[in-house]
């Protein structure tokens, strides 16, 4: 059995780590590319949301590389995500691919049975350790990402942070035991520490909110975080793979990491419409209260929960006076247009910052 699964930002690291510790030979789809997108869009329903198309492209490329088992999450609803696996299965079968589909659903007992099978006879302790390792690895990676976001606006040589982060991430991704991970972490931290920085700068603070997949997958969001960073913004975001995975577990749906967003969004949105809607709104409000300069809200074209969020954010913007830029992405989104819009937005924020400083001096 050679399992694979679609990319989803850093979440794949978790899946790979776990399956590798189960002793499986994982076949990862090649890095998401133009070809992935073309393949995915060709065989997907025209109006399906972007994540479905890209992940379908991932699966096709992985099957081409010899994967014979697809592992996917199929929990979800009310949004479309919960139905991805079923639909992609239909499409792939019609394309005559042969493979086995293993979906992890809300039925926990059944999930455990499937896990046991994937783990080829390892005992529950070993399975638990595999998960613990996967999560730790993912957390470490996210920590590096957070540092990179913080350092980028101060970097003296443009691109040096991204280069260092890519190297750090490569070192971490290579590890498959706790010990290796500990060493890799040390090395990665020192790499990021070595980036020459100009600490006299006063960067803008920008929050990036939106639908999970598009926020987490740099290829799909055209590296919006990196671009913002290199334009001189310190980027923060409320969506992280680890938190996302945790909030998928039913026991944490009320109390998990999303609680603070739900609370912040309460005056605007009483019920959770699903997806990241509540996090987009709650995150924006929390960032605004912390004095952020602006928010970039990203969503795939026709994304249901984010359209709801967009409507409500229009009010939040007025009430809290925070500039919000909404970027709606699809397979035709072009680099050039996106850069122009980001630059205009950052420009606006800079002028606003300068004005406020003037006022501060006068007062």
């Amino acid at each position: 059995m050679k399992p694979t699964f679609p990319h989803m930002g850093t979440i794949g690291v978790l899946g790979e780590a776990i399956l590798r510790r189960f002793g499986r030979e994982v076949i990862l789809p090649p890095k998401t590319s133009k070809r992935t997108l073309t393949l995915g869009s060709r065989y997907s329903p025209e109006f399906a949301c972007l994540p479905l198309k890209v992940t379908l492209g991932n699966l096709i490329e992985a099957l081409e590389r010899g994967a014979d088992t697809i592992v996917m999450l199929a929990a979800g609803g009310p949004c479309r995500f919960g139905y991805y696996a079923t639909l992609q299965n239909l499409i792939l079968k019609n394309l005559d691919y042969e493979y086995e589909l293993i979906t992890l659903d809300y039925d926990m007992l059944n999930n455990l049975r499937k896990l046991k099978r994937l783990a080829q006879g390892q005992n529950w302790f070993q399975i638990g350790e595999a998960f613990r390792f996967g999560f730790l690895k993912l957390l470490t990676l996210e920590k590096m990402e957070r540092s990179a976001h913080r350092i980028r606006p101060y970097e003296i040589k443009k691109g040096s942070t991204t280069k260092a982060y890519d190297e750090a991430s490569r070192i971490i991704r290579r590890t498959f035991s706790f010990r290796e991970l500990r060493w890799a972490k040390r090395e990665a931290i020192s790499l990021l520490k070595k980036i020459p920085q100009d600490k006299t700068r006063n960067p803008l603070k920008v929050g990036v909110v939106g639908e999970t997949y598009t926020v987490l997958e740099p290829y799909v969001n055209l590296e919006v975080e990196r671009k913002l960073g290199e334009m001189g913004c310190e980027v923060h975001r409320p969506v992280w793979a680890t938190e996302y995975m945790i909030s998928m577990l039913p026991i944490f749906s009320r109390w998990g990491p999303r609680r603070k967003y739900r609370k912040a969004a309460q005056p605007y949105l009483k019920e959770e419409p699903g997806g990241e809607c509540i996090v987009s709104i709650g995150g924006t409000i929390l960032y605004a209260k912390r004095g952020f300069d602006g928010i970039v809200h990203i969503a795939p074209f026709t994304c249901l929960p984010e359209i709801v969020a967009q409507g409500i954010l229009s009010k939040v913007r007025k009430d809290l006076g925070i500039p919000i830029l909404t970027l709606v992405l699809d397979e035709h989104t072009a680099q050039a247009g996106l850069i122009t819009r980001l630059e205009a937005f950052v420009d606006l924020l800079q002028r606003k910052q300068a004005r406020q400083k003037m006022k501060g001096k006068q007062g």
Partner: protein
Amino acid sequence: MAIRVGIPRALLYYRFYPLWKTFFTELGAEVIVSEPTTQEIFRKGLKKFIGDTCLPMKLVFGHVITLADKVDYLFIPRLVSIEKDTYLCPHFAGLPDVLRAIMPDLPPILDTYFNVRKKGVTMRSIYEAGKRFDKNPRRIYLAYQKAQEVYKKFLERIRDGITPQEAIQAFDGEEVPPVKERKERLNIALVGNPYTVYDPFSSLNIIQKLRKLEARIYTSEMIPDETIEEGIRALSKRIYWTFGKETVGAAFHYLDSKEIDGLIYIISFECGPDSLLKEIVDDKARKNKKVAYMSLVIDEHTGETGIDTRLDAFVEMIKRRRRSKKMEGEKNGK
């Protein structure tokens, strides 16, 4: 003066209007429904809506705007789910909040919360919906019971073979010719979200057009829930959207039954659930050679003439199939 409650002629109006109207009227309120959709209403909604979305959501904005200065309350329930183990699409849960955020000057919204996914309709939701009109829980409950009775009759009428649109007309006291007296030669199943199919503006009058072509219309509301569930049993994961489930369940049922000559699936452009489910219905219909199938993806730019041409071609195809079947039959008979 009675308190005026506004119900937009959009979305779940096409499913629950008789229930809602009876409930509020029983409690002494006056129910005001917005006018049938027009280009004007659509444009009003389009201007206000923020972001890009499906036609039905733009339409409900338009209807709400036209109602706003005529009523004391707007009834826009916060619907997470309207039946067991299924959801509505995420738009419904957020709708009252989005309306309020974009148009702060609206009359107060009765945004009763319904999430019957696990527990069914709760007394609390019912009380919540009625408490502005009568503080007495018993009377509210009685009004609800009455509304349920009326609603059951409404559903029965549809099961007898008239479309929900006609059943609503009948509920409002209009004449609807009984099915038996009609001259109908084609049998066509029409599936899709009720608020797209039964709003003549959204569906470009398709029902009237089909009637003119002497078609008998079959809809998902005409078959019992069990049949719908039966229809989608073959899918590896149960469809968890109410209307998606009904659409696909009905489509599968009709495709497998011998009742119909053709199946039409109406979709509004940019509908989230339907964008995926269309693929599933298309797939099944492609493998079925006996029933003619057509899907219509509709948005505000779709013209009536385009639909007319496609319908004509569709009916022509059905007739041709019938002729050839008959010929085959005769040949075999000899």
